[in-house]
C-alpha cells in the first residue's frame, strides 16, 4: 500500500489525469429507531453522510490497471461510525490465463443470500451495516491462474484489519460496548501476522463450485470482559489464530438455484463445522407483468449450537424477492430469519429504486421479535429501525 501511493501520485502528476475514470457515489442516510435505547446515552435518530469515489486508470491495452477507492462516513452521533477506509488501492496485471493483484482490495467468496459463511478474506465493517456485507479493504498479494480445470487463487495477506464496532452513543451494539483499544491477539505478531489463503473455483455445466483454505488471524473476534482507564466495564476483542476449510456450491437449474456453503474451522478452543444452504426459485413475468418474483429459503446450522459465536446457529431464512424490471429498477426483498429452537425472529425488508439517471433511493427496515435472552441478537431487542438513504452516483 505504501509502495503504491507514490505510483498513484506519479501517474496522476504525469498528466494522465484525463485518462482516469471516475465512478462511485456520495450519500445521505438517516436511521430512526422506534424503541427506547437500553442505554440512555444512545441516540434515537441519526444522520450521516458518506462518500466513496473510485478513480481507475487502465493502460497497456487494458492489461494493467490501477484502482483507488477511498471511503469516508461522517455520523452525527456515533464517533466510531464516523470513519474512513481505503476500500481499494490496487494494481492489477492481467496476463493471458493469469492475473496478479497487488495492494488493498476486496474479495467475495460464496453463493448464499442470508449468511455468508465462506467469505473470509476481508474484515467486516460492522458499523456500516449489521448484515456483514460491508467490508474493510484488505492488503493482499493475489495471483490467479485460469486453467481448463478451474481457477486457482493464491493470497498472501499482510496486515490484519480489526472489525469496527459502534461507539458509546451508537445503536445496534452490545451492553457493555466493545472497546477496540483493548484488542488482544493470540499471535505475538498481532496485527502484523501474515495470513494466507488458497482457492480453487470452477464451473461444469450447471454447477459452480469452490474449495478454499484459509490460515491466519480469524476475522470473527471472541470477547473478554475488560476495564477502560476510567473503570468502565467493556468487552475486549480477542483475535485467535484459525484455519478454515470451505466449500461453496451452486446448481443453476432453470428457474431454480440450489446453494450450499460449508466451513470447517479450527480455533483455539474447539474445531467446528457450519453450513448454510437452500434454494432460490424465480418466476419470471408474474401475473402477465414484466416483474419477477423469487422465493428464497436457506438453512443455517452451526455445530456449536447455543455456544456458537453467531446468532445464526440453527436458523432458517425465508424471503421473497420482487423485481419490477422497470426503467427505475425497483426491487424489494422481504424476509425473516427464525431460530427454530428458541423462536427468535429477525424481520428484514430492503427496497431500492432509481430516480433519474444517477440517484438511488433505498430503504431498510429491521425488526426483532420474540428474542430469547440466550440468543446473541438479544442485544438488538430495543433496536428496531428504519434506514433511508439517497445516493448520488457519478
Amino acid at each position, binding site marked *: 500500500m505504501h509502495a503504491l501511493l507514490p505510483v498513484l501520485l506519479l501517474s496522476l502528476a504525469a498528466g494522465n489525469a484525463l485518462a482516469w475514470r471516475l465512478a462511485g457515489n456520495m450519500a445521505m442516510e438517516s436511521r430512526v429507531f422506534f424503541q427506547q435505547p437500553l442505554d440512555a446515552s444512545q441516540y434515537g435518530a441519526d444522520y450521516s453522510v458518506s462518500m466513496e469515489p473510485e478513480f481507475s486508470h487502465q493502460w497497456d491495452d487494458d492489461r494493467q490497471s490501477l484502482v483507488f477507492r477511498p471511503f469516508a462516513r461522517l455520523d452525527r452521533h456515533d464517533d466510531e461510525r464516523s470513519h474512513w477506509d481505503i476500500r481499494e488501492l490496487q494494481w492489477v496485471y492481467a496476463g493471458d*490465463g493469469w492475473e496478479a493483484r497487488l495492494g488493498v482490495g476486496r474479495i467475495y467468496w460464496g453463493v448464499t443470500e442470508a449468511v455468508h459463511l465462506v467469505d473470509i478474506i476481508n474484515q467486516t465493517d460492522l458499523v456500516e451495516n449489521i448484515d456483514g456485507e460491508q467490508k474493510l479493504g484488505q492488503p493482499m498479494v493475489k495471483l490467479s491462474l485460469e486453467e481448463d480445470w478451474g481457477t486457482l487463487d493464491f493470497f498472501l495477506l499482510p496486515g490484519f484489519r480489526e472489525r469496527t464496532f459502534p461507539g458509546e452513543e451508537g445503536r445496534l451494539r452490545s451492553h457493555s460496548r466493545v472497546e477496540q483499544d483493548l484488542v488482544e491477539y493470540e499471535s505475538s505478531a498481532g496485527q502484523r501476522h501474515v495470513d494466507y489463503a488458497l482457492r480453487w473455483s470452477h464451473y461444469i455445466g450447471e454447477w459452480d463450485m469452490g474449495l478454499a483454505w484459509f490460515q491466519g488471524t480469524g476475522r470473527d473476534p471472541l470477547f473478554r470482559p475488560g476495564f477502560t482507564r476510567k473503570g468502565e466495564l467493556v468487552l475486549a476483542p480477542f483475535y485467535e489464530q484459525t484455519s478454515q476449510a470451505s466449500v461453496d456450491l451452486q446448481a*443453476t437449474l432453470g428457474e431454480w438455484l440450489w446453494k450450499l456453503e460449508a466451513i470447517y474451522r479450527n480455533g483455539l478452543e474447539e474445531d467446528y463445522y457450519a453450513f448454510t444452504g437452500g434454494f432460490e426459485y424465480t418466476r419470471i413475468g408474474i401475473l402477465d407483468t414484466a416483474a419477477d418474483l423469487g422465493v428464497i429459503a436457506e438453512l443455517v446450522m452451526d455445530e456449536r449450537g447455543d455456544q456458537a459465536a453467531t446468532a445464526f446457529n440453527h436458523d432458517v431464512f425465508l424471503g421473497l424477492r420482487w423485481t419490477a424490471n422497470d426503467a427505475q429498477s425497483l426491487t424489494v426483498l422481504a424476509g425473516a430469519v427464525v431460530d427454530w429452537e428458541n423462536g427468535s425472529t429477525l424481520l428484514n425488508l430492503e427496497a431500492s429504486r432509481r430516480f433519474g439517471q444517477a440517484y438511488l433511493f433505498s430503504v431498510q427496515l429491521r425488526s426483532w421479535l420474540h428474542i430469547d435472552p440466550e440468543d446473541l441478537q438479544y442485544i438488538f431487542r430495543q433496536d428496531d429501525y428504519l434506514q433511508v438513504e439517497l445516493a448520488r452516483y457519478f
Partner: protein
Amino acid sequence: MTKLLIMLLVALPGFNASAQTQEEKGLTIALEVDRRDSGWGDFQAQMGMLLRNRHGEESLRQMRVKSLETADDGDKSLIVFDEPKDVKGTALLTFSHKVKDDDQWLYLPALKRVKRIASRNKSGPFMGSEFAFEDLASQEVEKYTYQYIRDDELDGKPVFINERYPASKYSGYTRQLVWVDQKEYIPLKVEYYDRKNALLKTLIFKSYRQYLDRYWRADEMFMENHQTGKSTLLTWKDYRFGTGLKDSDFTRNSLKRMR
C-alpha cells in the same frame, strides 16, 4: 456444417424447389442468414438504449459490448454498464449455446460478487427495456424451428417472410415473424407474438452498415411494445471487428476487471 451443406443441396432454389416444404424453405433461409454472418471472429462496440414509456418519459442506458464467435457453440459475450450511473461497472458474461440454456454470470461491483444467474436469457426484460434477454441473445439457428410464409416487399425491398418458433420452454413467445432481405439475407423487421399468440412487439432494423466488406450491422434497432405503449431505441456505435479478443477475455475473473 455437413447438415448445412445437405440442406443447401436439397433446398437451393432451382435444384428441386418444388419438392421443398414450407418448413424446409424456412430453415434454408435461416441457415443462409447464419452462414452469411459467420466468420466475423470478434467485435467490440458501444450500445445505447433509450427507453420511453407511454407518457414520453425517457431513460438512458449505455454499455460496452465485447463478443467472441465460437466455432462449435453459441457466441461468448461480455456487457459492461456505464449508464445509469448506479449500475456502472456491473457486467454480464454470457456463454450462449445452440440448444441448451445459456450460461450467465452477473458481476455486482459494490460487493465484488460474481453471481451465476438463472436462465434469464429468455423472456425477462433486459435492464427494464422492451428487449428481452432472448431478443439480444446470440441468434443460433437451432434455437427455433421455422416455416416460410411468403415473399413480400418491405420499403421497396424484396423480402422473405419467415416464421419461427422458439425451442425453449422459457421463451416468452409462441412465434416470431421475420422479414428477411432477399439480397443480403439480413433481418429488417421482426414481429413478436406473446404466449397467448397476440402481437406483443415489433422490432425494426435501421441504417444497416457493412463491416469487413461482408458483415451487416444495423446502427439502430427500434422495439415497440404494442400492449404497453413503451418503446426502446437501441443504438450501436463504434463497431470494431478483429480486435484480438480471446477466450481468456471472457472469464469470471475478467468480469471483475471491467471498469
